[in-house]
């Protein structure tokens, strides 16, 4: 099934075509949401089909691309020459690491469009840009050529810049420019790293596999350390890692809800994906030399992000800072260079994508219905909006790692892999579990429970709207399913994590 069908290209094309139609609607702009939903839904269904057909443990007889050495196994592989002189090809394919993120992208895009159903301000552009964003992210997660990777990587910036700048909050101008320039500088560091790898490899190819092969002999240790530092910076800013995280709270607080969902749910994952797809396997000696740096930054992000959450007055800002903390786990998992750690990191990306989407959506609901997100002004809302309060509670519990929900499985695996590598240093990141529980429960208590607030007019506060409720319920269902049966996801990631460890070629790997 699906053999010979360029299914990935078709899926990437869906939102692109949708975006072009949406932009061209002219005075029929009010139908933009239907067009956007239709095309993103088709992409979602097709990607679900891909996940279903995907061979979990690929061997040489399964469909797709195999290099035979257990290093590169991609399914739904397509390859076309783009710029021959420079060795640039359009190559796309999926493995167990990219597949979960690929499906997450189509899922969150669709749900965000549903969530934004009520958007009145310039709907054509709004939904069109969301689809363009989806194209960029899908491209990043599937392409296997560095040049094309960079193109898609940068394409993502522009729609997000506009989403923050046009549909954002009061301080949107500052936030939009800061986001754009901060992340663009990071991208340029990545660009230099890509150029250096391309030339040093001397294979006249931007293909990830070609450069990896050439790098086995061509990349000296010092070269790897320098390039790894540049690439790690490029990806780490997106992640975001402390101390390069300051664009994130601004961008998140000002972005419209769907923008925040896509930003936290997808754009941050691009950073995490880049580290495990590009930086670590291609530059193993550099990664090895900077392993401790990665671990320290990861732990600092986890703890510092969590502490910052304690001090937040704005519900959305709290969620934004919690992302820094939770994405730190991704980096920590990678930094162990073990099969379990890599699996846990990717798992955590997927889990965080689902959970943070719920949280940002609920922040949007609170803002929409109460007119404010300042925790102190809220209070006792569970009486006015019981289902919203329930959903927010579940979201918080999922995010703080309640067993049985998806984040627990991910964080637990990170902790295990960390213990295996660094022993009792584990106590440091584990501290964050207590802090996380603290800030979430405290915020929940002050905003949802207790006596009804007097500070805002709650007379016409009503419960969650259908278009807000449906995406949240879908996400919560998935959070529960993957929480109870983590193997559903684990089975995809784990075999691919083996290939990453193989690529790394370091002793002590799984």
């Amino acid at each position, binding site marked *: 099934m699906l053999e010979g069908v360029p299914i990935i290209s078709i899926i990437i094309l869906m939102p692109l075509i949708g975006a072009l139609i949406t932009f061209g609607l002219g005075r029929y702009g009010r139908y933009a949401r239907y067009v956007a939903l239709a095309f993103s839904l088709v992409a979602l269904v097709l990607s679900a089909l891909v996940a279903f057909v995907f061979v979990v443990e690929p061997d040489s007889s399964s469909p797709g691309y195999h290099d035979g050495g257990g290093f590169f196994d991609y399914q739904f592989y397509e390859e076309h020459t*783009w*710029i*021959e*002189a*420079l060795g640039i090809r359009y190559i796309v394919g999926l493995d167990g690491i990219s597949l979960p993120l690929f499906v997450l992208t189509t899922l969150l895009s669709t749900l965000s469009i549903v969530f934004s159903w009520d958007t009145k301000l310039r709907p054509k552009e709004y939904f069109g840009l969301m689809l363009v964003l989806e194209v960029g992210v899908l491209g990043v997660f599937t392409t296997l050529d560095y*040049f094309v990777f*960079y*193109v898609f990587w*940068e*394409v993502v*910036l*522009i729609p997000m*810049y*506009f989403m923050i*700048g*046009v549909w954002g909050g009061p301080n*949107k*101008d500052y936030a*939009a*420019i800061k986001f*754009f*320039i901060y992340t*663009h*500088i990071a991208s*340029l*560091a990545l*660009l*230099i790293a890509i*150029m*250096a790898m*391309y*030339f*040093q490899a*001397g294979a*006249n190819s931007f293909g990830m596999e070609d450069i990896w092969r050439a790098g086995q002999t061509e990349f000296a240790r010092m070269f790897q350390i320098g390039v790894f530092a540049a690439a790690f910076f490029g990806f780490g800013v997106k992640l975001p890692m402390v101390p390069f995280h300051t664009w994130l709270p601004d961008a998140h607080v000002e972005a419209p809800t769907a923008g925040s969902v896509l930003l936290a749910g997808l754009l941050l994952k691009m950073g995490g994906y880049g580290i495990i797809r590009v930086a670590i396997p291609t530059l193993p000696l550099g990664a090895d030399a900077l392993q401790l740096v990665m671990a320290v930054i990861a732990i600092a992000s986890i703890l510092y992000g969590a502490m910052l959450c304690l001090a937040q007055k704005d519900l959305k800002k709290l969620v934004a800072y919690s992302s820094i903390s939770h994405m730190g786990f991704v980096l920590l998992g990678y930094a162990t260079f073990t099969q379990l750690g890599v699996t846990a990191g990717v798992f955590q990306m997927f889990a965080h994508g689902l959970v943070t989407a719920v949280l940002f959506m609920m922040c949007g609901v609170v803002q929409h219905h109460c007119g404010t997100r300042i925790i102190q002004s809220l209070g006792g809302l569970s009486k006015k909006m019981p289902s919203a309060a329930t959903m927010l509670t579940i979201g918080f519990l999922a995010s703080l790692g309640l067993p049985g929900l998806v984040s627990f499985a991910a964080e637990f695996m990170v902790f295990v892999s960390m213990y295996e590598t660094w022993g009792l240093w584990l106590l440091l990141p584990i501290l964050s579990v207590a802090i996380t529980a603290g800030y979430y429960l405290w915020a929940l208590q002050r905003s949802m429970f207790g006596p009804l607030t007097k500070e805002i007019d709650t007379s016409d506060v009503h419960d969650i709207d259908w278009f807000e409720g449906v995406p949240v319920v879908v996400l919560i269902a998935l959070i529960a399913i993957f929480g109870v049966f983590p193997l559903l996801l684990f089975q995809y990631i784990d075999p691919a994590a083996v290939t990453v460890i193989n690529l790394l070629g370091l002793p002590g790997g799984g």
Partner: protein
Amino acid sequence: MSAVSYLETFLPQLVLVLFALVMPALDYVFKDKRALAWVAMAPLTALAAALISWLFLGWWEMPVSRLQLLEVNVFTGLFTLVFLFVGIVVVLGSPEFILKDRNQGEYYSLILLAITGMTVVAQATDLIVLFVGLEIAGISSFALSGFRKREKRSAEAATKYFIVGGFSSALTLFAISLLYGVAGTTEIIAIQPVFAGVPAGSDAGPILILATVLLMAGLGFKVAMVPFHMWAPDVYEGAPTPISGLLAAASKKMGFAALFKIFLIGLIVTKTDWQVAIGALAIITMTVGNLIAVSQTSIKRMLAYSSIAQAGYLLIALPVATQYAVAGGLFHVLTHAFMKSGAFMVVAAMGAVAIGEKLDDFKGLNRRSPFLAIAMTLFLLSLAGIPPLAGFASKFVLFSSAVYWSFEPGEGWLIWLAIAGVLNSALSLYYYARVIKYMYMVKGVSEEKVRPPPMLVVSVVFAVVMVVGIGLFPGPFVDACIAAAERFADLPLGWR
């Protein structure tokens, strides 16, 4: 050598000059002055079509001809094509802009003459011919910037441009005479072996250094290299907007054609003398250009400083001095021609519909003319080097040439050129993004819809198509630039 092969060497010039001579007379023939633009388009499009069918489609093969003074090969062909393209964009953008002006025949005549001069520079193999080309183009451009002679700013721009231009020509000519004095020839390729033999400490040494410095200054004026850039913002602001486009997108490229020829062919053996100086000037030029651009309130001044910065990027090709770097330089010349002239045409369109040319006038442009807003956005993003637009592809080749050659022993410092270029691209994003922000996110004083004049729309659409097209399918253009660089001079390959 038969007369026929003479002819094909300077056929482009012949056609252009013929039309240039006829244009003023046609002024009296046509009632509707827009017809003049269509006449001026004829030689430009015909020559461009001929060049495209040769360079990209391979329908015919230009017999590689090389006279003592002029030559034709892939390199000159590509540069000529760039000038013709800019000419097309500018001529298409002009009629509605100068609708009420007098002497329109002369206007187009001067544009054609300026382009003639540029093509002469592109094809010159001799320093004197090169200088003549510079002068033909220069004098035509002086007159063009003062086209609205009753307008104070236009007259001021012309005067300033004339004085600075005359001065830089004098410097260039002086340098050429010094080179002639040492080498005994003005043929560019013949200079090269002479200097290879200049022993260190001989009398010729200081003269050579002086000539090199004077050339840097003289041609530095032409390409608006810091510290010889002061004239550019004033002139671009004062000149009629389509002419600003011509100056920024084509005149400057002529300066680069001259720089490439003199430094990479004539003076390549003394590379160690000028390499670091030009490298440092490249970094200074791009940084100064971008930093000053940030604080501009006039869009034309901002674009002027942005093109100073772009000149800084282009200068990277000289110190790297490999075939791949020249290819990158050529490619960026090509893409910059479209994005810069396109941006100026958007400004011209705004002037033509009386919105204005200040940065503030861009506020809320999306409401007034979504077409102009999206076109300007694409040009600006391309200038900033955001993929998948043309500016990204060409910057990529250009910067990567510096990265590659920095792996050579003794050339490690070249990596800083690439890093400076990349950091500057990020810096430039700040002021480009601000314009985009104004267009889409800030409310303007008026929301009245405007309809940009049709020929300007055609001109802008042409530039947009090229910027997006080259961005999505850079393959043939990269191939052509690499082929041109290969033909251009005997430089190290510099890649693979």
